[in-house]
Structures are given as C-alpha cells and as structure tokens.
C-alpha cells in the first residue's frame, strides 16, 4: 500500500471575521486527480494556496512526502526549500497564464527557464526539450521564438502547461485552468491535461467551479462551502448521488447543453 503524497489535517484560516478554511482535512495519493469544487467564496482557492504553501494557515498541518518517502511539514519548511520544491517536484497552473509566464521572454524561453532553474545547462538540450513540449501542447515549434503576447488565450494556457510539466513534477496544483476560455478551447485543453497527466502519472489538485470539468478529469472530488468540506468521495458517486443538500443544489443547478 503506497502512502499519501500530500495530507492536510485541521486547516483553519480566517480573514477577519470570515472563516476561509474552517477545519479542512484533505489527502492526495500519488497519481490521483482530486477536484475541489464550490462557489466563489467557498474557500477552494484558499485551500489550494494553503496546500501548496503559498499561504500559511492559522492552524493545521500540511505534510508532503518526497521521493525518498520523507514527510515534510510544508509550512515549517525554510523558504528556499519550499521554493526549490516549487521548481522541481511541484507545479502550479494559474487561471491567468500571464501570472505564471514571463511575457517579455519567448515561448521557448518560458519552457527552457523552468528547466534551467532545475539545473539544465546545455542550450541544445534545453531547446530540444522546449520544442518537444510545445509539440505536446499542440503549439507549432515554429512559434518557439515568438513572444507570448502574440499568442491567443488558449495558446497561452497551453504554454503555461508546457512550462509547468517540462520539469516532470509529481504534483501539480491547478486553479481554474480552463476558466475564461472559449468552450471549444476548453475542450481541447481538458483533453490535453487529461492525456498528459495520465501519461506522466502526475497527481493533481484541481480547483474549479465547473462541475463538468471535475467530472471529466477527477478521480475524487471535495465539495466546499463556507470554508468546510461538506461532501467528498468518488467523483461520479458524489455528482450522480449527492447526499448533502448543498451538493444536491450545486449538481441540480448545472445547465444541460
């Protein structure tokens, strides 16, 4: 039996009088895709930031088990060690790719930069790898020297994914990765994420308000409301046989195409 890759217990975080996280537990197995769904203000994005060490909780523990099987308290880690983790084992995909990409650096440079941060030095190897990753996210290698501002929104999001996955992380945090994209572009991106993540065996914590996205990508789902997890389990079970009143409301509110 393998062990948890990431586990969070008793997470609390308040913003003034409001509990953004009010006693949240969560676990993630290696290679598993966990979706966190809920409306705006439910605390799902806050949870993502706390799990990934970007924000500290008022109380509670987040533990990450590294490749050697050693557990680390994410919020007790020295900052350089946490930054190193974000450059190597972990990746973070933002809703707005402009938050992650360097807009003044070429597409190839954006991918190569992550590789160099991990220690790659040989220019030819880095460029080869960048070309390979652009291809994998369906961006023509002829665009390698183009600046990101010449790319469409969907291409920018694919470039961010290439940049994130190029270093072969074990764990990727995704914040609304398909948000703000046209439906046709979304479908393509979903397929891409699903295929790459399965092939590379990456574990993902995916925050989304879109239940259809969670259904297509996630093995397991957590439903959040007012900073609490109201229901969790196998994705299709939670969505097809929701038990909690709030989950029933959420599922019944989805528009059928």
């Amino acid at each position, binding site marked *: 039996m393998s062990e948890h890759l990431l586990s969070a217990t008793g997470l609390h975080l308040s913003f003034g009088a409001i509990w953004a996280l009010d006693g949240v537990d969560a676990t993630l*197995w290696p290679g598993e895709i966990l979706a966190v769904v809920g409306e705006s203000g439910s605390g799902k994005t806050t949870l993502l930031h706390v799990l990934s060490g970007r924000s500290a909780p008022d109380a509670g523990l987040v533990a990450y088990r590294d490749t050697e099987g050693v557990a680390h308290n994410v919020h007790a880690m020295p900052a350089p060690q946490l930054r190193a983790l974000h450059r190597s084992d972990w990746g973070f995909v933002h809703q707005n790719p402009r938050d992650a990409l360097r807009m003044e650096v070429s597409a190839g440079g954006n991918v190569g930069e992550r590789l160099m941060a991990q220690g790659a030095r040989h220019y030819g190897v880095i460029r080869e790898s960048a070309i390979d990753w652009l291809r994998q996210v369906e961006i023509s290698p002829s665009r390698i020297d183009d600046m990101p501002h010449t790319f469409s929104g969907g291409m920018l999001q694919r470039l961010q994914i290439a940049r994130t996955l190029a270093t072969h992380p074990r764990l990727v945090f995704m914040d609304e990765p398909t948000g703000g994209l046209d439906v046709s572009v979304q479908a393509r991106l*979903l*397929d891409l994420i699903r295929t790459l993540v399965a092939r590379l065996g990456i574990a993902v914590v995916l925050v989304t308000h879109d239940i259809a996205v969670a259904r297509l990508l996630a093995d397991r789902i957590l439903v959040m409301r007012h900073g609490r997890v109201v229901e969790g*389990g196998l994705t*299709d*079970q939670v969505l*097809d*046989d929701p038990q*909690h009143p709030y989950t*029933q409301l959420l599922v019944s509110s989805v528009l059928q195409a």
Partner: protein
Amino acid sequence: MRPAHPEVLRTEALGKSFTLHMQGGVTIPVLRDLGLTLRAGECVVLSGPSGTGKSTLIRSLYGNYRADTGRIMIRHGGDWVDLAHADPRVVLAVRRDTLGYVSQFLRVVPRVSTLEIVAEALTSRGTPPDEAKLRARSMLLRLNLVPHLHDLPPATFSGGEQQRVNLARGFIPNHPILLLDEPTSSLDAVNRDAVVELVAEAKAAGTAILAIVHDMTTRDAIADRLFHLTPLREAA
C-alpha cells in the same frame, strides 16, 4: 474442489433510498434487503416494471450510487471486496480490473475520437497503444460502425451509434463481471444480434453478466435466469 461457475458477486441485505433535499427532504426508498448472486459465465436479466429500481441496483453495484445499508461483495482478483464500504481508490481498481459497466448514455471528453475512446479502455489497463487501436477497430467493426466514423468524436453520432461506441468500450476489456443498463434500447435488429453474440462469447469466456433489457427477443436470447424486482411503497 472449486465449482466450475463460482460466485463472483453477491449482495447482502442491500438497501438504497434517496433523500431529496430540494423537495423538502422527502425520502424515497428504492431497494430494501436485496440479496442477489451472480456466478461466472451466467447472464442474469433484471425484470420488473419501470421504477422498481433496476437501474438503481446496477448503479449501486458499480459504486456510482452509494448503498445505504448492506454489503456488495465482489470477487476482485483473489479477494472479496465489499464495494459498499470500499475506499474510492479500491472502487477505481475494481472498476479497472474486475467490473465493467455499459450505461445508457455515452459520456466522454469532447474532441476525442471514437477509436481513441474505445482503445483507451485497453491502454488504461496496460495494453500497448498500437495493439489497443487494432482491437478497438475490430470491435467497432463488429458493432457495424463504419471505418470513417472511427476517427470522429462521437458527439454528433446518432443515439444508436453512440450506444455502440459505449458497448465497444464496455466489452473490449473482458472484465470478469459486466453490468449492462439497456444496452440495446436504440439498436436495430442487426445490431441487437451483434450484442447477443458478444454476450454469448463473454459468457463462454466466464464473464458474469447482469443486464437490464426491455426487448423480449434480446432478453430471451441472453438470459440464463431472471431476477425479479418488486416496487417498494413510498415511506410516509
């Protein structure tokens, strides 16, 4: 000595109801104290009028619905697993290796081709991609889906065509247990016959099949026995 047709699935006092919080919390009991056994190589068809919980039973057995009470014992590899109380990861492993399900409706990622959808049922279980595509192609042809459809996503297909994609995906991994929820409802006679043939082959290979089939001809052609469900009265 082991019996030639060992039990592979057994429910014990299975119960399932739905509580509708959007409708004032009314509770609708659907299954109560249900005991069903399924043996390797047999096909059991669920009978009973509409609304008696046939689909609910199939979905509960697949772990798609959460059983309220009782146990769902599934022979998974060399072990028995209680699917009603199993960890989500165990349920996913049982679905990958042991338990197949053909639902009434096809639900897939947009943009993915029909061939890839069917081949993925094999590659996700470790079959090399080339072999998976080859077998997917021949399975689709057996279900009379013409080659030019294989490279298209099934979103624009007719109901019958989508149902055959679903069947191809369900039959191709050769699961030891297969649950079929109205697999022939949108099919013409030729394609119903193709399904009857697939079921017969699966049974001969030792697959246990539990099915909901309304069409009498198909039912008589595949069923070894019927399992009758009777409606429960609504709780006050």
